[in-house]
């Protein structure tokens, strides 16, 4: 089986979760989406995804969650080798400055999306971050090209020699 690259969405409000997922379904053909409504459930999902030797390419995470908050989850992922490279995004209406700084410094936060977001903004960021991930982690990124940033993937093929004449 080929390694699958997952998108993980963590959000406690079901209607908001539904909206996020609806906005990024276009990626689902190549990047299966998993949803969690708490950090606890997200952890279980991460474990089960990694158990299958699959990867998590991107996590979109709310900050205010039951139990541990979003930033804690992201920091935890950053400290775990298998999820260190996962592209981490906070999508939240309110995370304090300190917590956001922590996410940037300790979880290598890639983006902060403020609620309410625009669909174009969300898909653009998802596309860019998944492109980054795929370029860094996938031998043959060709199959993802159509939903990602084709120009950058083509450029990667040009300079990176991932594919050659045969």
């Amino acid at each position, binding site marked *: 089986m080929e390694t699958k690259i997952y998108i993980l969405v963590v959000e406690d409000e*079901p*209607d908001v*979760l539904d*909206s996020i997922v609806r906005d990024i379904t276009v990626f689902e053909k190549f990047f299966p989406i998993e949803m*969690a409504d708490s950090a606890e459930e997200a952890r279980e999902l991460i474990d089960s995804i990694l158990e299958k030797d699959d990867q998590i390419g991107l996590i979109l995470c709310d900050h*205010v969650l039951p139990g541990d908050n979003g930033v804690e989850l992201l920091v935890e992922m950053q400290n775990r080798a298998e999820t260190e490279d996962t592209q981490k995004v906070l999508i939240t*209406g309110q995370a304090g400055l300190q917590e956001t700084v922590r996410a940037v410094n300790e979880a290598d936060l890639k983006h902060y999306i403020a609620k309410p977001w625009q669909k174009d903004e969300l898909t653009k960021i998802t596309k860019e971050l998944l492109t980054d991930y795929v370029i860094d982690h996938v031998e043959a990124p060709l199959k993802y090209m159509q939903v990602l940033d084709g120009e950058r993937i083509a450029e990667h093929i040009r300079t990176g020699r991932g594919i050659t004449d045969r």
Partner: protein
Amino acid sequence: MKFKLGKQWIDDRNRVVQLIRRLFDDSGHSERFLKSVAEGEVLLKEGDPLEDIFLLLEGSVELYKKKPDTDTDFPIARLEAGSFIGIIAFTTGEPSLTTAVAAAPSVLLKIPDEEVRSLFKKNKQFRNYMDELILANLLDRFRNTIILQIKLNSANNKLREERNELQKAYRELKEAQDRLIYQEKMATLGQLVAGFAHEVNNPTASLLRSTETLEERISSLMLLLEKEPDDLDFFISLYNAGRKAGYPDTATLRELTAQLKESFTEATPAQLRLLAQVPESLTARLLENKVLKGEELDFYLNQFELGKMFQNIESSGNRIAGLVKSLKSYSRTDTEREWEKIDIREGIHDTLQLTSNRIKYYDIDLDLPEVPMIRANAAALNQVWTNIILNAADAMGKNGSLSIQCNNNQETLWVEIRDSGPGIDEEIIERIFDSNFSTKKSEVKFGLGLGLSISRDIIHQHGGTISAKNSAKGGAIFTVTLPL
């Protein structure tokens, strides 16, 4: 009046005194009029009619004036040799203005009033000397008065300046205090607004996203009108189901999706997620009709989603409306009067609603039976509840429980707010209501650290009390009492 002596003479009163004394000695009147007095001897009293005129020849005399409304005298001038005593009264004929007391053993000429005039007649030279001396004395007095007046003026000015400065300092202090209170209020408000924004943003995001999806789905609805009228009732059931559908939690959703994957093997994950929310009877009908995948399945699911989006919009709208209502009621922007009869429980509910982003995941235990209405400043009291609740949230962190109770007896009403945090350090528990006392140090999350002192002021304004203690079971208990 003719002045025989030059100006410099006027200043040399000793010489005049000597001249007068010689005159008296020569005329043999000395025995009659010359008088020696010991120190402390009273020559004349304030208010007495003046019968004699005194000319100080040697020693000195202190003049005293009685302070108005008291019996104490205070010294106003010291007269040296060559001075007349009681010269004002003498010239005007009014009672003595001062009390004269010998400040040292002195020698004076004491001449009865009537004698003076006969002496003047008898002795032209004496009269001349006396004229000169009176003039000199009056000039002296006049000069003193002017100097005094100038001194008084400058003292008055200085006083006025000092008073102005004091007033200014007081005004500034008051302003600073007002400002501090205002800032604290704004800081609290800022917190609340941030929380409010967060709470409003969630439903707003959902609302906006739903409208966008709606736009897309509406076009499919248009298609529906032309296509397959047989299925119309099915479409309507799907729509209605969507209108009422709830959101399963993510674990359930995953489970349902996995189950549905067995029947709808070729459906996309997005389709399966929607199917998981469709009532079983309708899913069964889809299976029956062999609507299993692709655009055809989308077509049916769109109807369901259409209903769902409407439901989303409705509930999000309601949520926003509710929050805005609480904010309005909390800040009392809808009423003009500050003080009115209120049910304090409403304020507590509003506060809980508005701080919900901070206390969202606490176990909240409310025991708020009906209590009498009281006259109070609702917005101010809300600030007290907010301070206490947010302090508790700061103390507890992410998890904890919050219990709020109220009750009353004949005279008072009390509210008790207890948290499950670490409690208050016994060393500082006495001081937590003092201004500028904060346990939060550099990490001020909420307000300026004045929250509790302002709360105390507010409660005092209401004639009530506020106190804090630690519960035996851990956590802090804040008790507010208010008179009925």
